[in-house]
């Protein structure tokens, strides 16, 4: 029987780190030694505790959830919410990913953020983020998960706008927070409905009772899941609430790696996986989730092909890959979704960290050469960097092949699983979309690699070239670790149809969690097909996709490498379709026109008409009315003797009158 070992410590360690570093940001602002150790150690120690728990859970063979009650938060009438942590197989997987990748990124940050005046503050925020993310994945009830949900949103805002002196950066932070808020509204409404129907907000009471309270296709199930998906759309950057993520690249690159690739944005996928039984009961919502996911995957991929900023390419790539994850959980392949979440955490974090190394190097080179003003992110300012940054180059190729789904890298197994499942579970159109998006992915990643690391000519500048350098040790080690994981990470789930040893580790591990959902789907949906929509088995399509992906990579690579590119400062403006893609299909402008401006007009109206005119006006008019009445009364106080005599007589008459009558 598995009992969680020191469960509170898992959360307490990052929190303690956050507090220590937070205090340090005030008390020993210039001294970065404490944060350098406390930051990564807090998260690393948490990872160790999680790993111990993982092995304990594995050895005990428990499949049920173990809930640890820390204290009671809300006890009001019929509503009881406790600060309860749920250690089950799904949350264990998430905890491992979160703490593991976080530790690597914390170590990387020591190198990346060296010398930054906000070093201590950075680690405080980063530790705090890990704390909230852990709250999110270990919560045993919706409200507590919401606390984590909001908390990671807060840390995201703080970290995006980390260099807050720059107005554009802090605006990006605001944008992220505000767009997320729309999603949070969905989460709240879903909670209200859940409480109304189930009378409780604990997972242990809602999820097992779902089939009892709700019919298949029940309108309430649909509503709950649609509102939950609204929350996912915000947090995990799906259409239409994805617009904050590219702007979030304003934050330090390790932040982009941790929050906007590996962990926070995957919270939505986790939410759907956690409430899988509710989604299984609402086929309409499932279809919505899958369609939005596939659509987003394709849409974002198209934009990524024309971006010049290396981080923006990766940002749109993240949105696209998140679309894959939602496609998976939408069609009911929950394990596939979590699998892709895991492999994506590895290769996307690696890609971001590598990009960070490149940016760091170019910036340093320009600084040494005395050059200012120029975008170190722009790939047109890179070129042939493999000569100076070999470790980064190799590890990023590992990630590129993984994301493109080339065998035997991790992405091949997870992405293929997603595409295959969407094909056999009855979504042929989405299957096709996912395939196209996969090839686009291979394309833009090859372009990225070619522009940055190859090409035979370096565009950073004659004077700066000599100062380019490879990643320092603190940054290189995490790159290598993630590079290896990008290769072998997929080997925990190898399907039978491939002529390889069948490994069912992840699915076997997570099956008990998704069993209720699979049960519902099997009862109502029929069995899965055995062949893809266009015919052919898993092996066939696995071969096709890997070969085509590799071919695309080679083709685009060669095309890009042979072209001569000018630096960002001299490059011409894109035209035609390129321009539309470069401008992200003008979605931000569309939002501005359709939503932001009418709202601002409404607010201005409220201000001028309602607040100034009505409310202030009423108060002011009351005051002038009172003054007018006072004026009338003041006329009685003329001070003139004669008038007073008159009034005196009037009073006498009145008194006599009342006495007599």
């Amino acid at each position, binding site marked *: 029987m598995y009992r969680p070992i020191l469960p509170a410590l898992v959360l307490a360690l990052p929190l303690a780190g956050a507090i220590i570093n937070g205090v340090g940001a005030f008390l020993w602002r210039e001294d970065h030694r404490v944060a350098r150790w406390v930051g990564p150690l807090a998260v690393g120690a948490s990872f160790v505790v999680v790993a111990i728990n993982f092995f304990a859970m594995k050895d005990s063979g428990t499949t049920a959830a173990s809930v640890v009650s820390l204290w009671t938060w809300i006890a009001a009438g019929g509503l009881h919410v406790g600060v309860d942590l749920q250690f089950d197989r799904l949350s264990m997987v998430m905890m491992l990913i979160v703490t593991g990748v976080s530790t690597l990124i914390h170590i990387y940050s020591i190198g990346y953020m060296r010398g930054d005046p906000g070093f201590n503050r950075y680690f405080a925020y980063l530790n705090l983020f890990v704390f909230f993310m852990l709250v999110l994945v270990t919560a045993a009830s919706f409200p507590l998960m919401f606390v984590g949900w909001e908390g990671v949103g807060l840390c995201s805002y703080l970290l995006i706008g980390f260099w807050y002196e720059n107005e554009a950066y802090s605006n990006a932070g605001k944008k992220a927070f505000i767009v997320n808020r729309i999603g949070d509204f969905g989460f709240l409404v879903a909670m209200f409905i859940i409480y109304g129907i189930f009378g409780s907000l604990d997972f242990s009471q809602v999820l097992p009772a779902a089939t009892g309270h709700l019919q298949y296709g029940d309108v309430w199930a649909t509503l709950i899941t649609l509102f939950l998906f609204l929350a996912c759309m915000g947090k995990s950057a799906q259409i239409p609430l994805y617009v904050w993520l590219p702007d979030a690249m304003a934050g330090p690159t390790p932040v982009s790696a941790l929050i906007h690739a590996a962990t926070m944005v995957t919270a939505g996928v986790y939410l759907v996986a956690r409430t899988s039984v509710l989604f299984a009961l609402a086929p309409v919502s499932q279809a919505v989730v899958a369609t939005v996911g596939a659509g987003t995957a394709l849409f974002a991929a198209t934009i990524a092909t024309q971006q010049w900023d290396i981080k923006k390419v990766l940002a749109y790539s993240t949105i696209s890959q998140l679309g894959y994850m939602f496609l998976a959980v939408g069609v009911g392949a929950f394990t596939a979704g979590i699998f892709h979440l895991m492999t994506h955490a590895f290769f996307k974090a690696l890609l971001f960290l590598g990009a960070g190394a490149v940016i760091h190097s170019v910036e340093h080179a320009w600084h040494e050469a005395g050059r200012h003003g120029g975008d170190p992110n722009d790939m047109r300012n890179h070129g042939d960097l493999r000569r100076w940054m070999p470790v980064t180059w190799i590890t990023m190729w590992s990630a590129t092949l993984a994301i493109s789904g080339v065998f035997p890298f991790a992405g091949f197994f997870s992405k293929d699983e997603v595409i295959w499942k969407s094909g056999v579970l009855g979504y042929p159109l989405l299957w096709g979309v996912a395939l196209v998006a996969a090839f686009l992915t291979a394309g833009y990643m090859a372009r990225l690699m070619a522009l940055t690391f190859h090409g035979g000519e370096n565009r950073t500048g004659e004077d700066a070239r000599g100062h380019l350098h490879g990643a320092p040790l603190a940054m290189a080690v995490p790159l290598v670790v993630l590079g290896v994981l990008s290769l072998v990470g997929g080997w925990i789930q190898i399907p039978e149809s491939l002529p390889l040893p069948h490994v069912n580790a992840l699915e076997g591990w997570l099956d008990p969690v998704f069993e209720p959902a699979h049960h519902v789907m099997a009862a109502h949906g029929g069995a899965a097909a055995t062949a893809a929509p266009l015919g052919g088995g898993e092996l066939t399509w696995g071969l096709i996709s890997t070969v085509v992906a590799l071919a695309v990579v080679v083709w685009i690579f060669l095309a890009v490498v042979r072209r001569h590119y000018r630096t960002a400062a001299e490059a011409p403006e894109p035209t035609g379709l390129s321009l539309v893609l470069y401008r992200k299909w003008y979605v931000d402008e569309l939002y501005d026109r359709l939503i932001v401006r009418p709202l601002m007009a409404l607010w201005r109206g409220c201000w001028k008409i309602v607040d100034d005119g009505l409310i202030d006006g009423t108060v002011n008019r009351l005051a002038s009315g009172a003054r007018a009445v006072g004026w009338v009364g003041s006329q009685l*106080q*003329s*001070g*003139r*003797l*004669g008038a*007073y*005599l*008159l009034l005196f*007589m009037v009073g006498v008459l009145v008194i006599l009158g009342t006495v007599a009558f």
Partner: protein
Amino acid sequence: MTPTLIRVALLVSAALFAIGVTGALLRRNAIVVFLCVELMLNAVNLSLVAFSRLLGIDGQIIVFFVMAVAAAEAAVGLAIIIAAFRHYGDIDVDRFDMLKW
């Protein structure tokens, strides 16, 4: 003394009082206002005397006191008017608006 005459006396008193009131409200000259006040006092004296004819000597004693007080009041009041005249140059009742803040 027939009841009618007593009644007439009282009516006269009432009429004199009303005339005094009208005069006090009508005139602007402070001295004339004062005269009207004296008129009112006398009206009251008349009514007191008429009632004392019916009810006892006490009414007359009250009249005695009223006259004494009227004398004192006239003296002081006229002194005030003289002082006011010295200050303002005229004794128009409407002119005195210093009772306001």
